């Protein structure tokens, strides 16, 4: 017989998963760009937003509303909606509020700027709705108050983000919009087709490169009157601005990190290593489970780095370490499970890649990653608890505000873990079923 040099039995089960995960982490370590970028951007965004509001290291923040003049040359239903969206940013939990003022001419806006009441003017061009929906491009114009630096920057950023989202919507929702158009023929305001819009080509291009990571964390896009801006300026969040912004952004970043982890399954398929592992004693199940574990591990490391950087750079305090550990662990499992379900259900890599941002963004929207829950319409508020974002954000915020210790977030951790494990079970089941006759 051939001498058996193995010191142990072949790796199966947990031992195999451990070795597979270790390999995945090693690969990330050797090709770290994607991961680093995923971490740098949420952090950068938090920094920009937080610092822009003069976040004094740990202090509570209460922000003045930013004056924005809107010169609506289009004067349509759509343009009204846009101005309203900007103006609707208020409420006790919104970190930023805009004081939107309709102006009749550019001069009026300039007067406001000179008096320091207006930080920027947004000009909505005439014929905007028509060209937006009719396949043309739209050039919004943003005029910044030359005597201010940071506030106009914020306005520009927020609107820039809106533009990217609009472009995204155009690309991804073309089909549904066509159908809506057919339905809405009787409505004059409804459009033929949505097209890409841009405020400024440069801004938009810049953002587009990072569009996965850019979301409007500081904007609340609900339509409401801006009358109560005096209230809004008096009540700020009761924790520091970074600790307030970061959890929502961090979880979004986490979802994209987890997506990168799951995408790797397709990569392994195309590299042939999928089959090689499947042919090893470990088998397909260990491989699939390892992808969930790797995605969780990468997400956990990412979240720790994000929160840790938040603490170092912004001086944020995250409260009870034990509670924090629970949230990081369960949040990562939830992110991996949720995204893994999507990747498991997708037929092709392209399908997954198309659906992932849509799913991640919409779940994050409803879950309060982008807009404080209090600003969402009632139905969204009742849906929010069905998203992992809601539980992670709520848990981290109550820890940061010292409203809870680890016992207080036990429920959050339990729900998140439940999200993750059920996503994993379903996702693996889907992959298994699809590759029923071998792999």
């Amino acid at each position, binding site marked *: *017989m*051939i*001498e*058996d*040099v*193995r*010191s*142990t*039995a*072949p*790796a*199966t089960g947990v031992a*195999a998963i451990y*070795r*597979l995960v270790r*390999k995945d982490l*090693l*690969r990330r370590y*050797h*090709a770290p760009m994607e991961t680093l970028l995923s971490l740098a951007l949420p952090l950068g965004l938090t920094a920009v937003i937080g610092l822009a509001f003069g976040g004094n290291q740990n202090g509570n923040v209460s922000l003045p509303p930013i004056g924005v003049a809107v010169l609506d040359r289009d004067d349509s239903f759509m343009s009204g909606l846009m101005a309203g969206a900007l103006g609707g940013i208020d409420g006790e939990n919104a970190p930023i509020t805009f004081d939107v003022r309709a102006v009749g001419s550019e001069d009026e806006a300039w007067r406001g700027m000179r008096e320091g009441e207006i930080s920027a003017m947004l000009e909505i061009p005439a014929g905007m709705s028509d060209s937006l929906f009719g396949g043309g491009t739209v050039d919004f114009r943003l005029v910044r108050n030359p005597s201010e630096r940071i506030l106009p920057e914020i306005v520009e950023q927020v609107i820039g983000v809106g533009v990217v989202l609009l472009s995204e919507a155009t690309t991804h929702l073309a089909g549904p919009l066509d159908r809506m158009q057919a339905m809405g023929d009787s409505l004059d305001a409804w459009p033929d087709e949505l097209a890409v819009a841009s405020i400024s080509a440069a801004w938009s291009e810049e953002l587009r490169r990072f569009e996965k990571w850019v979301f409007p964390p500081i904007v609340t896009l609900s339509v409401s009157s801006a009358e109560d801006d005096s209230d809004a300026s008096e009540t700020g969040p009761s924790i520091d601005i970074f600790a307030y912004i970061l959890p929502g952004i961090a979880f979004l970043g986490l979802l994209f990190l987890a997506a990168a982890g799951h995408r790797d399954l397709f990569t392994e398929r195309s*590299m*042939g*290593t999928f*089959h*090689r*592992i*499947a*042919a*090893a*004693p*470990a*088998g397909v199940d260990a491989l699939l489970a390892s992808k969930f574990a790797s995605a969780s591990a990468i997400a956990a490391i990412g979240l720790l780095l994000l929160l840790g950087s938040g603490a170092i750079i912004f001086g944020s305090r995250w409260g009870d370490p034990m509670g924090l550990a629970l949230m990081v662990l369960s949040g990562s499992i939830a992110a991996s499970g949720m995204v893994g379900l999507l990747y498991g259900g997708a037929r092709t890599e392209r399908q997954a890649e198309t659906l992932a941002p849509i799913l991640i963004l919409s779940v994050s929207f409803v879950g309060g990653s982008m807009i404080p829950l209090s600003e969402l319409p009632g139905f969204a508020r009742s849906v929010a608890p069905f998203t992992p974002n809601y539980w992670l954000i709520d848990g981290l915020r109550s820890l940061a505000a010292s409203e809870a210790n680890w016992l207080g977030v036990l429920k959050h951790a339990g729900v998140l873990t439940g999200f993750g494990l059920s996503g994993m079970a379903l996702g693996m089941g889907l992959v298994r079923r699809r590759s029923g*006759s*071998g*792999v």
Partner: protein
Amino acid sequence: MSESILVVSHLRKAYGSTIAVDGICFSVDRGEIVGLLGPNGAGKTTTISMICGLTVPTDGRVTVSGHDIAAEAIAAKSQIGLVPQDIALYEELSATANLSFWGSLQGLTGQSLRSRVAELLEKVDLEGRATEPVERFSGGMKRRLNLAVGLIAHPHLLLLDEPTVGIDPQARFAILDIVREEARAGTAVLYTTHLLEEAERLCDRILIIDRGTIHAEGSPESLVAMLGEGKVVTIRGPFEQGSIDPLLVTEDGMEIVSSQAGRVLLSIENGAIPALFELLSRDEVSVDDISVREPDLESVFIKLTGRQLRD
């Protein structure tokens, strides 16, 4: 006494109406190199995939050292070293990291893993590049590493699926040498190829496979002997399929091996060649080319399948 490591019985795989593998049976003994020789689409990769448990057969059974690949997957798989047709390595990792990972998956750990990795790096002549990421390797280097991964855990059964595709002759000979060495150490080897020379040089036994069926089986010599003692003559010309067959069968000492439009292959007794030329000129058969050669595997293949390995 021979000891069968791999036993394949009535293995069949249908993809819808395509029968990729059609009920094949064979075995590979300890220390034996068996070649699965067939053209593109013959069913070689499908056979390998079923043997190592990647593809579930429509019918039939595979055992490795007595373990059923379906029922005792872990026991069976742990005996197998697979070298897939398409290179399967982690490009961003080094040769050492790749080998270590695949070794760890087979249960090697610690010192035994490290020394096995070092041994294999030397064997495939990659010690000098061991720490470089694989993405910087040439095609031949990747092929060698791909082979080394298959050997990492001293498999009892080595499955090689066209392991020399797309590399220069030197790297190819190196790979063939390593395979021979493994077999001498007792490993059972199943080697798929569409290259006659490789099969002829390397294999103790060859299975000729085409359209999912094994058409013949034997040592290279015994397969060639099927064509008899004489020579193999190929006649090419602008004739229809079967049009000159009646003419040829009238003569003693000639046997039609295969007949196609534009090409007829004959097995012919040594003395009968002049008679063939006479026959062709007498009947004014228009001929472009006649070649005479010793019987070889290629002729056997054409005789069995009616087509050439490479068209």
